[in-house]
């Protein structure tokens, strides 16, 4: 006869307000095998836990049910308590009578009845629980950082400086991300590249960091501590060992009229190119879509001029397997595409540009050497209208969230413009000014007061061109809705920050979840901001939601610490809730008949073939074997197995079957 202890928690008023906890405890105490059943105000409090520990000793309980909140909340707490009380932690179960009962039902008998059913069910389950020991798996002390923006750079450096190996994967030819495109940064107005490029170089030169640029993740196998990542190194058509980065090829390439991505299409680049002067690695790649040789089959000028003969036209993509223990995702964000704003004529009028394009115009290394000239005719604009919330906070546009960085960089843009064009007037149309952050509000004030930016609170309905001017039609809600019309020379849209294209695809490859906007989802919005719900994969930067530089860097360091924490141990312990194939005495050996239909359902390739041999070494039977290191315990194989030879610890057939029975038999 089992000795189960049942502890019903009032959770202050949270449960007892609608559930008669005494009655629950009292009813349950009558169940066979229940040695002790009591209720208490706060089970999770120290005294509460102590009660459990003592009870375990006193009644030498062989099972514990805590009827309280969701196991997703406090299961670890109480299992720990039980362990300390000398009971195997897996003999402790939680009955969720708060989230699934007291909070969702009124104070009625039916609610208490339901609570009783729930507890009874868990009691019956616990009777069939088995003591389990956690699994220990080795940890590969090497991290992969996906994405070489400022977040990725920070994460990589932090991990590397802690003495661990890091592999950085970057999709583009150079690391640096969006930050390398920025002119100055708020609120200090220090030059973006001046603070970023040294760290880019540091990454390239760090003994612990291997940088793989122009590469993308193909697939991911394994689990925390033991990931195996397939990486596609896209062909650069270049032997990097030979290339000295002299740049002769890029100057000699005849095909120079390709819109430059780094300049956001405001400038041009050749077909063989280095994205920008300070690029890391500072070696060119050939853009196959535009290279005359790849498209038309002749040219090869770069090959001729290369002093070291480093050009390799026939270089194929290369797939490399990399084994790492942890992964940090820093794939960053993108901004909404032009065609998203027909009413603003973005994409239709040359002089309607987005924030990043303005950054390039204002950047000393940009297409205009930092002089603000409008794209259409190169004139210096006299009136510039900045439109904040272009897409953001606009349910009609399907983007309900605030892109967060726009208020600040719009203020910055207005400033930069005013500093460069003293006689010009910057206008800003805004909904609200969201300048939360150190020195942020002051910064916006400066833009308004010192730099005389005309802030107009209201939306812009449409922008249209008339006699070379852009007519911006909007409303000033602080002037009781007066219509405003501004004849601007340049319009800058603070376009909404959105998830990078391919984010969804990557998330599915890595089995991390993502929200409806395709931003990667953290494991807990407050308490686990840099973890994903896939153990061993962490997040940093704007791939999670729009973030500014300080936030991205902070998150990156946070993720780095998590990785280092993981690497602090040589092995990590995993929950033993995994599937096992049953064993029987010879001649049966197991009920498994080796049809291996389970092998194809396993998402983790955890099911292997095991041969039972006799003394002579002759194979008597081939059985399924489940690799405890790989099994994640989804149980799909268990439900599929016809002979019921596979069972899932913690959710055994016996347990779930009993639950169904107990839940209904009242």
């Amino acid at each position, binding site marked *: 006869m089992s000795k189960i202890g049942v502890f019903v928690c009032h959770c202050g008023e949270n449960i007892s307000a609608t559930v008669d906890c005494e009655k629950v405890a009292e009813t349950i105490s009558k169940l066979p095998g229940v040695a002790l059943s009591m209720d208490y105000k706060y089970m999770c409090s120290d005294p509460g836990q102590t009660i459990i520990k003592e009870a375990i000793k006193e009644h030498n309980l062989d099972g514990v049910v805590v009827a309280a909140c969701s196991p997703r909340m406090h299961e670890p707490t109480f299992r720990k308590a039980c362990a300390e009380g000398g009971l195997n932690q897996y003999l402790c179960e939680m009955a969720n009578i708060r989230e699934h009962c007291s909070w969702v039902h009124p104070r009625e008998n039916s609610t208490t009845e339901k609570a009783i059913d729930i507890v009874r069910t868990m009691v019956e389950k616990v009777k069939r629980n088995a003591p389990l020991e956690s699994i220990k798996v080795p940890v590969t002390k090497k991290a992969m950082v996906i994405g070489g923006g400022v977040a990725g750079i920070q994460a990589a450096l932090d991990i590397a400086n802690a003495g661990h190996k890091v592999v950085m994967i970057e999709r583009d030819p150079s690391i640096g991300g969006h930050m390398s495109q920025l002119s100055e940064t708020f609120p200090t107005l220090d030059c973006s590249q001046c603070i970023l490029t040294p760290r880019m170089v540091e990454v390239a030169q760090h003994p612990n960091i291997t940088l793989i640029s122009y590469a993308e993740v193909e697939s991911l196998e394994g689990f925390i501590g033991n990931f195996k990542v397939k990486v596609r190194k896209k062909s650069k058509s270049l032997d990097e060992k030979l290339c000295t980065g002299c740049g002769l090829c890029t100057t000699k390439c005849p095909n120079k009229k390709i819109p430059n991505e780094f300049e956001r299409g405001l400038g041009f680049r050749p077909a063989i190119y280095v994205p920008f002067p300070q690029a890391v690695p500072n070696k060119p790649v050939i853009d196959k879509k535009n290279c005359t040789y790849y498209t038309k089959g002749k040219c090869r000028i770069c090959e001729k001029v290369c002093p070291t003969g480093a050009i390799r036209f026939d270089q194929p993509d290369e797939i490399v397997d990399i084994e790492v223990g942890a992964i940090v995702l820093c794939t960053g964000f993108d901004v909404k595409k*032009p065609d998203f704003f*027909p*009413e603003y004529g973005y994409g239709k009028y040359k002089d309607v540009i987005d924030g990043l394009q303005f950054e390039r115009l204002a950047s000393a290394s940009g297409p205009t050497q930092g002089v603000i000239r409008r794209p259409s005719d190169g004139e210096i604009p006299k009136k510039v209208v900045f439109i904040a919330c272009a897409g953001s906070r606009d349910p009609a*546009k399907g983007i309900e969230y605030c892109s967060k960085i726009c208020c600040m960089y719009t203020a910055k843009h207005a400033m930069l413009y005013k500093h460069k064009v003293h006689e010009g007037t910057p206008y800003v149309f805004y909904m609200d000014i969201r300048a939360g952050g150190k020195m942020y509000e002051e910064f916006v004030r400066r833009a308004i007061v010192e730099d005389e930016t005309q802030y107009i609170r209201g939306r812009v309905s449409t922008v*249209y061109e008339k006699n070379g001017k852009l007519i911006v039609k909007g409303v000033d809600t602080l002037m009781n809705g007066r219509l405003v019309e501004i004849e601007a020379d340049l319009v800058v849209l603070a376009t909404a920050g959105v998830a990078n294209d391919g984010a969804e695809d990557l998330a599915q490859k890595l089995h991390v979840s993502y929200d409806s906007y395709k931003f990667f989802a953290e494991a807990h919005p407050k308490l686990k901001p840099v973890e994903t719900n896939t153990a061993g994969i962490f997040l940093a930067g704007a791939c999670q939601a729009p973030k500014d530089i300080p936030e991205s860097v902070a998150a990156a360091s946070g993720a780095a610490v998590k990785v280092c924490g993981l690497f602090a141990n040589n092995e990590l312990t995993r929950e033993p809730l995994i599937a096992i194939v049953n064993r029987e005495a010879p001649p049966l050996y197991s009920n498994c008949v080796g049809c291996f239909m389970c092998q194809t359902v396993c998402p983790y390739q955890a099911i292997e073939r095991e041969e039972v041999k006799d003394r002579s070494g002759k194979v008597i039977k081939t059985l399924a074997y489940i690799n405890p290191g790989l099994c994640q315990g989804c149980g799909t194989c268990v439900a599929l197995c016809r002979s019921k030879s596979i069972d899932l610890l913690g959710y055994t057939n016996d347990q779930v079957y009993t639950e169904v029975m107990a839940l209904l038999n009242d």
Partner: protein
Amino acid sequence: MKLGFYPGCSLKGGSPEYRISTFNVAEKFGVELVEIPDWNCCGATAAHNMDKELSLSLPGRILALAEAAGLNEIVVPCAACYSRLTVTNHELAEDTQLRENISTIIGMKYEGNVKILNIIQFLDKYVLPHVEEKVVKKFNHDVACYYGCLLVRPHNILKFDREENPQTMDNVITKIGGNPIDWAFKTECCGAGLSVSRTDLVGKLSGKLMIDALDRGAEAIIVACPMCHSNLDMRRSAINKYMNRESEIPVIYITQAVGLAIGLSEKEVGFQYHMVKVKLKEKPITENLVVKKVVQTEPTEEK
């Protein structure tokens, strides 16, 4: 091919040319328009500002009548009527309780089986597919397509074209060999609501958009709404006063334009009813004009 037809007050009263041209065009394309028997006012402008139930009952009855008459697709040329009927259709489909209330009020069932076409959807579905072979005289003019307020708003209910910079009417014009100019006032207000009470404001609002049309060299303004038409056409004096210049630019219904292109006479499209006489001067057809396409910047995801 038989379709239901809801004229509403305008097409029976102020805008006979719209009705005539619509019927004649439809006939040319083998579409018979059957007037909904015993139809009533759609309750536009007045009702929905005062009494929700009334504003749904009036169109509700019209829809119910159409359904009863077995007219599952009805053409509603007037933009205001179109708006009222579509909104009603939408709300009744959303809320069964409401539908029951309304049907008790109007004393007849409505199952929601009536599909509503505005004039452009009608042209798009039944005329454009065969229009090219029927065009006898290309409508070779630079025109400003004016959609007005009700034809494309609110988008989440009408699900028609785009609120900002709509394109469908421009497509029709292009199809009949015309050249829709790119201008800025496609969906601005013409002041219809104030047509009677504040004529001066009509002059201002309509004037603004007229100026842009003229500046961009439009030979005519194309409309699909009787209110827009009456304002731009009938209130021309007020408009000219605001612009302080004499404008002769005609205001033409999209159906009239199509009509001309497929060889209907000026009478058959009802130009005789216009205040501002329609004098479109012949132009030599230069190829580029005919093949000229509308600048399209379709949103990738139109929510």
